[in-house]
């Protein structure tokens, strides 16, 4: 039997199969994915748990301050008498929502910048990459603090909208996306530069495909792997940034809960209720490390050159 005949006898593996085989070998990534799914499902049940326990996560009850664990309060209460379990669940919603949303928006901005810069090249490329370098050179955290402190009224946003509770959520997604797109932009530009010279792209140009079609149909699908990996890794980063801004009182505004702002007062209650300071931080840590492991596993599974 000839070599080629032997090869032909084996059924070809589909890329999806190869991906799963490689991904499932990365045990930490699989465990992380499961953990994140559990977290997501748990936070989705938050309203249900609230109804079952009969508490409002944001309503202070000063007679019930710093209660220990009980049937009515499975994890006890915080310094304002609010149920800790409920606030952790609602805080998790915020952290996951902000993390995913800001990472996705950053990915879209970064992909658009990278693909345009890489495809058109020349002056436009120079300009866009200089802009990217400029944003990378910014002192990230102080700048985010300034952006988070900007008074929307002074920007001409009507007070009715500017003082709305949900604005702090959208604002934090917006400002993190504004500075978070640079990694994806660089990766996509690099991928585009290589793909642009490949035969199938040249063939598409030769048969008259326009720049828009080339970028979206021919280049983008082949640059998906680095985008997915970078975006997954950035979710963890975004959650860290959100938590620190909320901790400093500049992110999610109380009474709405976020894992970051639940720690704001922890320094005062560290003597009387140390667990209050431990739970939110542990959850941030577990979520962020899970996204990092997941990103690592995806990289191994999607990039055949990595070991």
């Amino acid at each position, binding site marked *: 039997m000839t070599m080629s005949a032997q090869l032909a006898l084996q059924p070809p593996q589909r890329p999806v199969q190869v991906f799963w085989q490689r991904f499932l070998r990365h045990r930490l990534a699989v465990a992380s994915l499961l953990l994140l799914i559990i977290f997501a499902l748990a936070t989705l049940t938050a309203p249900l748990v609230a109804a079952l326990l009969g508490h409002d996560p944001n309503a202070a009850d000063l007679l019930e301050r710093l209660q220990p664990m009980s049937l009515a309060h499975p994890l006890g209460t915080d310094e304002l008498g609010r149920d800790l379990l409920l606030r952790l669940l609602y805080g998790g919603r915020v952290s996951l929502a902000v993390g995913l949303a800001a990472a996705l928006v950053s990915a879209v901005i970064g992909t658009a910048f990278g693909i345009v810069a890489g495809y058109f090249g020349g002056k436009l490329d120079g300009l866009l990459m200089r802009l990217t370098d400029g944003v990378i*050179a910014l*002192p990230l955290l102080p700048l985010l603090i*300034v952006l988070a402190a900007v008074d929307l009224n002074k920007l001409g946003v009507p007070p009715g909208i500017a003082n709305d509770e949900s604005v702090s959520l959208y604002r934090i997604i917006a400002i993190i996306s504004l500075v978070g797109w640079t990694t994806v932009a660089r990766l996509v530009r690099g991928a585009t530069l290589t793909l642009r010279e490949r035969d199938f792209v040249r063939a598409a140009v030769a048969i008259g495909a326009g720049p828009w079609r080339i970028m979206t149909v021919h280049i983008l699908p082949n640059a998906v792997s680095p985008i997915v990996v970078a975006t997954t890794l950035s979710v963890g980063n975004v959650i860290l940034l959100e938590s620190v801004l909320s901790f400093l009182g500049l992110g999610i505004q109380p009474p709405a809960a976020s894992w970051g702002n639940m720690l704001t007062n*922890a320094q005062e209650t560290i003597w009387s209720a140390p667990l209050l300071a431990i739970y939110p*931080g542990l959850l941030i*840590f577990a979520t962020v*490390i899970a996204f990092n492991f997941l990103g690592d596993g995806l990289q191994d599974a999607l990039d055949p050159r990595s070991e």
Partner: protein
Amino acid sequence: MTRYIALRLGESLVVLLVMSFVIYLLIGLMPGDPADMMIAGDPRITSADVARIKALYGLDQPLYSRYAAWLSSALGGNFGNSRLHLRPVLDVMGPFLANSLLLMGTSFLLSVAIALPAGVYAAIKPHAKLDHAINLLCFAGISLPVFWLALMLMMAFSVTLGILPAGGVATPGEGGFNDRLLHLILPVATLTLSSVGHYTRFVRAAMIETLRQDYIRTARAKGASPTRVVWGHALRNALIPVVTVLALSFGSLFSGALVTETMFAYPGMGKMIYDAIMGNDYNLALIGLLFATLVTLLGNLISDLAYVWLDPRISYLSGEARR
């Protein structure tokens, strides 16, 4: 070479100029202004006084003319006075900068001293038990929220054990060498734990890449001992990308220390910037942020220069062509 450096410095100046305008604009958009604070502090103030104060500080002028005024005096070396400290901002910044350099320098050296051997040992046998253990610790360090780490260290060593101070640079009334050293331990530990994971992963990646090269196989084939191959032949080349990444990270170290310094009430640049932003101290916040940007830009420049200097295969010309 001189032309290349001049070009890069010019570029950095342009970025700084743009940044100064953006920061000025953003700080102007923060709630309240210096006059509001004075008004709030003195109930007898009249609206005529308010108008006079606003005119005195130029707050009745449009933003761009205020910026132009700031820029022209800044170019003359006068960056204005700090509202919180009532002194010229450059004088205010000095001690904060010295404290920051002490904190970040110590933590930087410590991180590198840990990351180099850890990364090298992890890379010698990729995917062995030791590599996995080091990798796990790296991921843990990268994923820790810095403010929470600081809180936990404080809880353990200051509250429960009571052996280390929870903040500040020195006990009031004391301030000897040992006292200052004790106050440095927790901030340095926090900063080190949060940065050493990144560094170790860079070292590991660079080492693995280098150990795959042909010349390493040659060295092994001609009988060089494993120790000599790793520490003599491979490390020197693996250090090239590591050094450039370390230089790049210096800027982020600068602003990353903000959280640590704020948590431990350590009077460094990060805390100064944070307090200035929160306290509406325009001039001080502006100079602090610009200085942090300058450090990042210089870090980028040093990183590029170090790359060319360490690796003879790369020239400035190709560096320019690449852009």
